[in-house]
């Protein structure tokens, strides 16, 4: 009990420290630590840092390419593992070349490749791109790209270790605890990169940035914490680490990406600020139900009750996030359906609710209870990875990769095929595998075998056939991943340049477009196919025609007018009471607009303004 209290204290203490650093910095030491951190991310690496260009988007692009490559490997490993539950000797012929994994080896390799290879790398890549888009640029692109290769190499080494006798029995952490420390060490420069990017930006971090920074901070924490497992079997710590990886790392990062991708793809802000705040705070303060296969055999009543409460509370941030993103997307279904990446992300977000709800029952039952749902826990974890979080990660890759490569994905048809193959594949797998789990659990029930024997009835191998069906359906994910990779590679070379594509309407440009009374926006006009040379007929009494170029010049005039008004207003300095109620960034802007020094604390800036 004391051990878990210390672990929890260290975790939340670390998150609070990160929040403090992101907002306040280190006071007088800030510039020194910033310079040191930049040096460590760049020059300190020596020639290795020169391997990659410090171009905008290069880090995110490298991570996404590696991530999708690992999606292919992980989905293939998952497919073969699923198949072998039906036909254990399917790959026996590979024994002649030394590849004869046991079930434990296959599962350890599958877990490693899917969580730390595919999902983590894709989420990190998308997260870096979100961060650079929101802050203008990353602190160090070349360091980010270098770390992608280090992470990939570490995962590959882990894949080899997973096929040796070094593996243990801790669910999802089968490899030796020291191994996971390497991931934390690689995540540390990424975390510093995120932190520097956020602190260098004058605008305070927004919700997606908080998700990303705190998410990667959680990942950094898991490495040192995992070393405690070296002391011996500690179910409670292993369970907490699993929850941190699934909830505070994977889920948080996925939600951060979704909170950026959906509004950005639709061109509209998030529906509710309070719901996004609840999603952010709740994700880190509650215990996620995802990662249902982790459990604790024996727990005290108090601890069991507390864990049950925090598991149930975890639905609150999930529902808040899903409701917020759904409300943001509502009314924009046309734009949503035209972007396969945004659609994929939205489907993943919506699937979070059923997966989390089912996992909640399994998780509560696994923590000191009878573990009655242990037979579906593994399937639920796979659904969390491939259905909910995987779709968000791949949707993020679809939407953000063009911004990193500077070119659109090559083929919309391939994007559509990727979308449907993964959705249908995961759905078919879910239905088939859940049936298999329930049938197997029923047949393995107490007295069932004896009763069948007494009745001289042989149970048909229904579960075996359906397991085969589940594996074949999952093959859709493998093919979808390959298609996405090909689409990305071809997009890098032959995709439409992002700027040109956005400037030109998708279809043929109409010569004339009639506007009725009311309001509209340039985005709506562009989506209606209006081009720069289209005559826009305004349907008022006076009539009249203008083109989009005219509208743009009018918009510039309006912007100039607004800026002039802002300048005029900025001369007036509010009284001290109003200044105290303003946020620091607003005070900084005000001081800058008046040509006064904007550094120091809030009180310092107010003192200068009223002086």
């Amino acid at each position: 009990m004391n051990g878990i209290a210390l672990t929890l204290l260290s975790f939340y203490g670390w998150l609070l420290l990160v929040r403090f650093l992101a907002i306040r910095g280190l006071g007088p030491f800030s510039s020194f630590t910033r310079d040191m951190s930049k040096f460590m991310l760049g020059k300190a690496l020596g020639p290795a840092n020169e391997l990659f260009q410090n171009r905008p988007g290069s880090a995110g692009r490298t991570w996404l390419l590696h991530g999708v490559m690992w999606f292919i490997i992980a989905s293939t490993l998952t497919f073969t593992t699923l198949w072998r539950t039906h036909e254990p000797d399917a790959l026996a012929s590979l024994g002649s070349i030394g590849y004869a994994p046991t079930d434990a080896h296959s599962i350890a390799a599958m877990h490693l490749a899917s969580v730390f290879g595919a999902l983590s790398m894709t989420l990190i890549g998308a997260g870096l791109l979100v961060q650079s888009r929101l802050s203008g640029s990353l602190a160090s692109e070349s360091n980010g790209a270098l770390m992608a290769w280090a992470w990939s190499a570490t995962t590959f080494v882990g894949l080899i270790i997973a096929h040796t006798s070094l593996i243990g029995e801790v669910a999802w952490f089968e490899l030796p605890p020291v191994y996971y420390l390497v991931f934390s060490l690689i995540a540390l420069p990424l975390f510093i990169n995120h932190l520097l990017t956020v602190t260098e930006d004058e605008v305070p971090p927004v919700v997606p940035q908080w998700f990303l920074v705190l998410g990667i901070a959680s990942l950094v924490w898991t490495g040192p914490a995992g070393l405690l497992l070296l002391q011996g079997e500690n179910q409670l710590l292993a369970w907490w680490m699993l929850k941190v990886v699934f909830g505070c790392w994977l889920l948080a990062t996925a939600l951060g990406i979704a909170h950026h991708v959906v509004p950005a793809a639709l061109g509209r802000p998030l529906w509710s600020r309070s719901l996004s705040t609840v999603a952010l705070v709740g994700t880190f303060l509650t215990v996620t139900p995802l990662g249902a296969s982790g459990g604790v055999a024996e727990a005290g009543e108090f601890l069991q009750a507390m864990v049950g409460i925090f598991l149930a509370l975890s639905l609150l941030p999930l529902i808040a996030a899903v409701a917020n993103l759904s409300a943001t997307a509502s009314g924009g279904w046309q734009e949503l359906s035209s972007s396969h990446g945004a659609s994929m992300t939205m489907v993943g977000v919506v699937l979070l609710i059923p997966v989390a709800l089912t996992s909640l029952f399994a998780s509560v039952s696994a923590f000191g209870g009878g573990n009655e749902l242990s037979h579906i826990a593994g399937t639920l974890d796979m659904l969390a990875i491939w259905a909910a979080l995987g779709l968000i990660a791949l949707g993020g890759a679809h939407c953000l990769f063009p911004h990193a490569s500077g070119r659109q994905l090559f083929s919309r048809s391939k994007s559509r095929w990727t979308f449907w193959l993964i959705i249908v594949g995961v759905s078919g797998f879910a239905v088939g595998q859940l049936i298999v789990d329930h049938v197997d659990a029923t047949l393995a029930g107490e007295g069932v075998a004896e009763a069948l024997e007494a009745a001289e009835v042989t149970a048909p191998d229904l579960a075996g056939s359906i397991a085969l069906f589940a594996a074949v359906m999952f093959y859709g994910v493998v093919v979808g991943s390959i298609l996405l990779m090909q689409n990305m590679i071809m997009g890098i070379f032959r995709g439409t340049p992002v700027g040109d594509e956005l400037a030109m309407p998708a279809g043929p440009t109409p010569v004339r477009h009639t506007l009725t009374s009311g309001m509209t926006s340039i985005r709506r006009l562009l989506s209606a196919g209006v081009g720069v040379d289209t005559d826009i007929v305004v349907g008022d009494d006076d009539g009249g025609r203008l083109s989009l170029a005219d509208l743009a010049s009018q918009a510039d005039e309006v912007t100039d007018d607004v800026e002039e008004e802002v300048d005029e207003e900025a001369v007036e300095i509010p009284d001290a009471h109003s200044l105290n109620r303003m946020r620091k960034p607003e005070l900084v802007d005000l001081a800058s607009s008046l040509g006064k020094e904007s550094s120091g604390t809030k009180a310092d800036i107010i003192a200068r303004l009223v002086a």
Partner: protein
Amino acid sequence: MTVLPEVTQGGDEPASSRVILTLAGVAALAFMVMFSVLYPEQQFPGLGDILPLFSELGGSLIWFFILGVLLGVGMLFATLLGELVADD
């Protein structure tokens, strides 16, 4: 009266033709999955049974799928190589 040639080749590609292709693919897949159920006495031929080159792989159907993955990965490398050496 219009006289059509004996053999006509249409150039159109209606959207519904893809639906038919997909349905045909699903039907073929369903047949393969249901083969051992419909004909329990017979084993569905594996890759090694069809191509003697792969006879050492055994009769498992998983090799059809793994072959698909290998072809897909090969296609990725070919695409990458092709784009890198493309002269345009």
